[in-house]
């Protein structure tokens, strides 16, 4: 790897590890200090490596520098604290006794604890994803801003407020006990799900960042599975869902970054390897007595990896959506369920059901109606697609709808 690529690459993989370990050591409320130390460490690398050449083991070099900087910080802090609270005599020894531990085991423990700390419901969802990207995935502020179609100032403000919340609420870095782990894990899964969706359905045109978001969500989900306390059926189901969806990442955009709809995708571009991994984790998810929404969504996603339009497929998908909607309603599930209904029970029934949904603010609703009326009543189809076009927000969506109208002529 070339030197100018080496540091950004290491930043992405190591920054988050250093921050997690240091935050755990000095306290979550001091996360900004941990970030400063990690940042300074990379700054030191940027000054030294171009001049002296990259060290033989760059990661070890970074860990050493981070350790020393952390130790200096703790000593300085200790002297300061000692002046105002002289009775604290033993802390200095304590610092030397508990070295900064950057062993693989402590890194992964710290990151897991960090995940629970960040995915805390008192922090607003948007900020959780921002913090996760920054602290767990080592994304730059600019990259986060691009993912959210926002700017650096807004993201910085959002992260600042989230960290303030961490201090106010005294959120600590720890894995919750067995009694509350299921409930807390649900929050973590929600955040990982949003992180993945942000990449998969994101409004951002930046394909590289979108893909990175998806694979970071997968990486974090894998981390949960590697720990026996968090290796639960719902986690496996979510990971299966992500793998199945990610298998189409390369097939769903053309070389100009334009969206290719499912029916038009080249199925030979679907990643068989990822489909296989999805199958593996869906199997692992099939234990316990609770059917989560992730189980249902993963099974639906499995059927999406089967391109053949068979009656079995659509009947299965319809029943999965029927159950999913009973667990948790969402506009997109209601629309997809109605599409599956048209495939399983016929368009006539689906049109009646679709007209009942009345999601008149949602352009996908009119796209669905356009789809259902096609070849039944093309005038109706066209007028619905035109309504969709008039309320669609992104250029990608408008482009897709225009193509559909074009096809009707």
């Amino acid at each position, binding site marked *: 790897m070339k030197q100018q690529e080496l540091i950004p690459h290491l930043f992405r993989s190591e920054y988050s590890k250093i921050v997690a370990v240091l935050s755990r050591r000095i306290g979550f409320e001091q996360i900004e200090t941990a970030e400063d130390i990690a940042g300074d460490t990379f700054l030191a690398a940027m000054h030294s490596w171009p001049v002296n050449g990259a060290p033989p083991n760059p990661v070890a070099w970074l860990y050493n520098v981070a350790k020393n900087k952390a130790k200096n910080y703790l000593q300085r802090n200790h002297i300061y604290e000692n002046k105002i609270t002289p009775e604290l005599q033993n802390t200095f020894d304590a610092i030397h006794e508990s070295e900064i531990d950057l062993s693989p085991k402590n890194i992964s423990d710290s990151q897991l604890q960090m995940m629970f700390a960040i995915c805390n419901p008192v922090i607003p969802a948007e900020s959780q994803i921002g913090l996760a990207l920054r602290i767990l995935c080592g994304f730059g502020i600019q990259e986060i801003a691009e993912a959210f179609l926002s700017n650096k100032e807004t993201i910085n403000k959002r992260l600042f407020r989230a960290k303030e919340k961490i201090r106010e609420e005294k959120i600590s870095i720890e894995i919750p006990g067995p009694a509350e782990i299921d409930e807390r894990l649900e929050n973590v899964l929600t955040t990982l799900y949003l992180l993945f969706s942000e990449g998969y359905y994101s409004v951002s045109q930046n394909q590289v960042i979108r893909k990175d978001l998806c694979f970071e969500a997968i990486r974090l989900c894998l981390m949960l599975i590697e720990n026996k306390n968090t290796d639960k059926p719902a986690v496996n189901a979510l990971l299966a869902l992500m793998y199945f969806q990610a298998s189409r990442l390369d097939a769903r955009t053309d070389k100009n970054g334009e969206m290719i709809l499912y029916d038009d995708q080249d199925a030979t571009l679907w990643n068989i390897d990822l489909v296989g991994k999805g199958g593996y984790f869906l199997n692992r998810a099939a234990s316990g007595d609770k059917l989560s929404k992730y189980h249902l969504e993963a099974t639906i996603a499995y059927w999406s990896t089967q391109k053949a339009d068979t009656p079995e497929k659509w*009947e299965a998908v*319809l*029943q999965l*959506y*029927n*159950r999913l*909607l*009973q667990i948790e*309603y969402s506009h997109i*599930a*209601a629309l997809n*369920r*109605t599409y599956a*209904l048209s495939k399983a*029970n016929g368009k006539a029934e689906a049109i009646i*059901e679709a007209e*009942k*949904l*009345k999601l008149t603010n949602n352009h996908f609703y009119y796209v669905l109606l356009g789809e259902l009326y096609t070849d039944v009543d093309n005038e109706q189809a066209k007028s619905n697609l035109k309504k969709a076009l008039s309320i669609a927000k992104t250029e990608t969506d408008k482009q897709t709808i225009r193509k559909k109208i074009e096809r009707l002529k």
Partner: protein
Amino acid sequence: MRHEDGSKIASPEQMQVWMKQTMDWIGGIAAQNKFVSGTGLMFADAKVVSHNKVVTDGPFGEIKETIGGFIVVKAESAEEAAEFAKNCPVLGGEGNTMEVRRIAKNDGTH
């Protein structure tokens, strides 16, 4: 859902068709975000305890009607709930009926 005769035994194929129709019906209500909960009731092991505390099997025989299940929906009015009820596959059975009732609030009002 009220069945005229709970002692009728359906074939597995028939059960499967009803199951799908019922799931599609509930799914349609859930797709409108109007579904709250649903409970199916088994006819097997049904007991009736009468006024004089005599326990009999079924409500079969002298009582001609039995409850097959209930579903709780969010509806703007009893009329809207009745519209949902119209599409329930239970009504495919002659003599079966759907009864629509408002749930009493726990604060003494209705």
